[in-house]
């Protein structure tokens, strides 16, 4: 029995960590969010082979597993890195590799030559006037909180849970700002748009959502761990009343509570990622709980670690808000904790009606 990261996985973690902390430090994140341009950062990740992680070898990828992808997502969260990783490198290959018709697109993703936007959210929960409907092979409606404004092509789930590929020239893309400037999200307007049916197999749709949820949970794990690290090291330097604030129990206990909450989340992400590839019966339920639980802990860590920084935590100067907002974004996307828990209950038949 071995429950943990393998040597190869630790190496992967180290190499991504090294690249991100060296080349994508906070200055670079600030610059990228200002220019709304993450292309250079993404190219760096493509050079590391990240874009082809989940793509079969025949299409130029390296065919790694969900846990490997989660390790990368955790690092991206840790460094609040702007990138189309979840959409292009994770969700798109999960959908496209279930058919044999889009090997070219998979190959282009692996090479870093194509970015695929993802519009799945509206099919999970409808609010306002969202939603995409299919009629005679054409799509109409509005998709919101779509990942990746800079995508070349989009995978769109209609309300029938079928997934379609839509070219950029078939839709209107409106940039939509969210609190999280490290993520590029947009709104898609479709009006009898030409669309190619990729799959009407509902299980593919669920797989795509689940793997996205795991990546968001892993991203929060990394972001929250970084916030704790920053809070602890700030507390060890900051002096008040003639001593470092890290020696006050009030501060120490806040750090201990964050650590105690977050540490089990690491094992939870490992298990959930492993379950996605190996334990199909429990994968969906575990995923719901994983993202819901980590979102709750993440919210607590985001607030508490900001407080430990005192007034500086509130400033743009320290930049802690990038992590705070990233965790907030992950919490809502692809299912809020309340929705996920309700889904988890339904999945285990916890309803008498």
């Amino acid at each position, binding site marked *: 029995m071995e429950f943990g990261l393998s040597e190869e996985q630790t190496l992967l973690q180290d190499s991504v960590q090294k690249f991100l902390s060296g080349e994508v430090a906070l200055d670079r994140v600030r610059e990228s969010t200002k220019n709304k341009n993450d292309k250079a950062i993404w190219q760096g990740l493509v050079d590391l082979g990240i874009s082809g992680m989940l793509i079969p070898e025949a299409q130029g990828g390296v065919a790694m597993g969900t846990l490997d992808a989660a390790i990368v997502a955790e690092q991206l969260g840790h460094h609040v890195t702007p990138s189309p990783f979840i959409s292009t490198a994770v969700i798109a290959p999960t959908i496209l590799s279930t058919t044999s018709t889009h090997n070219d697109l998979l190959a282009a993703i692996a090479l870093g030559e194509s970015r695929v936007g993802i519009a799945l959210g509206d099919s999970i929960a409808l609010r306002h006037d969202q939603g995409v409907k299919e009629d005679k092979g054409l799509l109409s409606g509005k998709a919101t909180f779509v990942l990746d404004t800079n995508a070349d092509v989009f995978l769109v789930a209609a309300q029938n849970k079928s997934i379609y590929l839509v070219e950029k020239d078939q839709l209107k893309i409106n940039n939509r700002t969210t609190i999280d400037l490290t993520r590029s999200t947009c709104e898609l307007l479709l009006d009898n748009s030409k669309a190619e049916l990729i799959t009407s197999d509902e299980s593919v749709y669920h797989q795509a959502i689940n793997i996205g949820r795991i990546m968001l949970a892993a991203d929060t794990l990394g972001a929250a761990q970084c916030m704790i690290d920053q809070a602890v090291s700030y507390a060890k330097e900051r002096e008040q009343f003639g001593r470092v604030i890290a020696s006050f129990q009030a501060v120490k206990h806040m750090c*201990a509570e964050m650590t105690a909450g977050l540490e*089990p989340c690491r094992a939870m992400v490992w298990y959930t990622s492993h379950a996605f590839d190996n334990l199909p019966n429990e994968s969906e339920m575990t995923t719901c709980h994983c993202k819901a639980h980590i979102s709750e802990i993440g919210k607590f860590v985001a607030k508490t670690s900001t407080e430990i920084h005192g007034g500086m935590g509130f400033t743009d100067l320290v930049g802690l808000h990038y992590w705070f907002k990233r965790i907030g974004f992950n919490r809502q996307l692809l299912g809020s904790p309340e929705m996920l828990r309700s889904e988890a209950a339904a999945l285990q038949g916890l309803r008498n009606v």
Partner: protein
Amino acid sequence: MDLSFGEEYELFRKDLKAFIKQNRHEALGGRLKSDKTDAWQKRLIENGYTARTIPKAYGGYGATLDIVKSRIIAEEFAHAGVAGGMSNQGISMLVPTLLEVGSEEQRLKFIQGTIEGKIIWCQGYSEPGAGSDLASLRTSAVLDGDEWVVNGQKIWTSSAHIADWIFCLVRTEPEAKKHHGISFLLFKMDTPGIEIRPLVDMTGAANFNEVFFTDVRVPKDQIVGKRGAGWMVANAILGHERDMLGDPNGALSRLNSLITLARSESLNGDKLIDHPVYRDRLMKLQGRVMAMQYNDMRILSSRLNPGQDAKIARMIVKLQGTELRHDIEGLGIDMMGEFGLCYGDNPDLRDNGAWQSQYMFQLGLIIGGGTSQIQKNIISERGLDMPREPRAQQVKSQEANSQ
């Protein structure tokens, strides 16, 4: 990542399941002495399902340590809802201590009787003035000829009223620094000069006692380890107790009872499981239980694969596990509403009052074995390398300097 235990272990699990199924009608657990529980205990020892790694010479089964097998044993008895090996402070604390630091004579004298349930022990650690700061304990033992003369008071001594023996921390070197002046003594509870007063707690039961010592005379050789080394002796197995206190198997089993309760209790004609607010609270707890189970798998794995680091994962178990248990019991009461208030002989009581008494008892566990606040000190100081709180004396002199 490899979550399987392998064929040998699956076979072991299969045999154990069969054993439990065949013998469950005889299973009787508990901390008290009775012929029936002793017989069940003996059966479990003979089959290697408790006292498994204790050498045969001391009455155990004599297997080499295999934590996977220990884990399977704990899991299977918990899942079956059948009493496993007897658990009391003698078995879980004194026996490992004697194996670690006791003399051969002490091991031969005490271990077999203890694991067979024939010798019941109580633990004399806490004092009214020495709780979280245990090392400041003041119960004294002074050597007089061939005997120690013990004077002082202990508190939170569970089972003192039924115990045959006590393992007790006493101060033997009053001049030494506080951690270096303590010794670990064993003595009989019927020695003259011992007075036991039951301490009724919030559950309404006397789970604990106060124990008073007045000139209690203890033979000189009933000391474990060297004079003044009692703190080390006591700490040799302290981590072990903390692991036990946050066990996620217990949380899982109570969560399952909670699900059963939610399916059976109703509110305005609807089962509680169909009530979105209660269901959400239930699911929140399930998520927390799952996180602790996976955390536990990681700890187990780090023991099997020494390269893996699970230092912080271990440190948080007592804090998270006991708080989680308390929250689980609390939701049980909330689900029942006013019926959650029933207690004692109330005929409307559900599940024999387990929700109410456990809700209170688990609060005791949050406090006992190192309070949640002490756990947070440990996590921040040893896990996150944050500085200790300055001593009151230092704070005073700092204040004087700054004035």
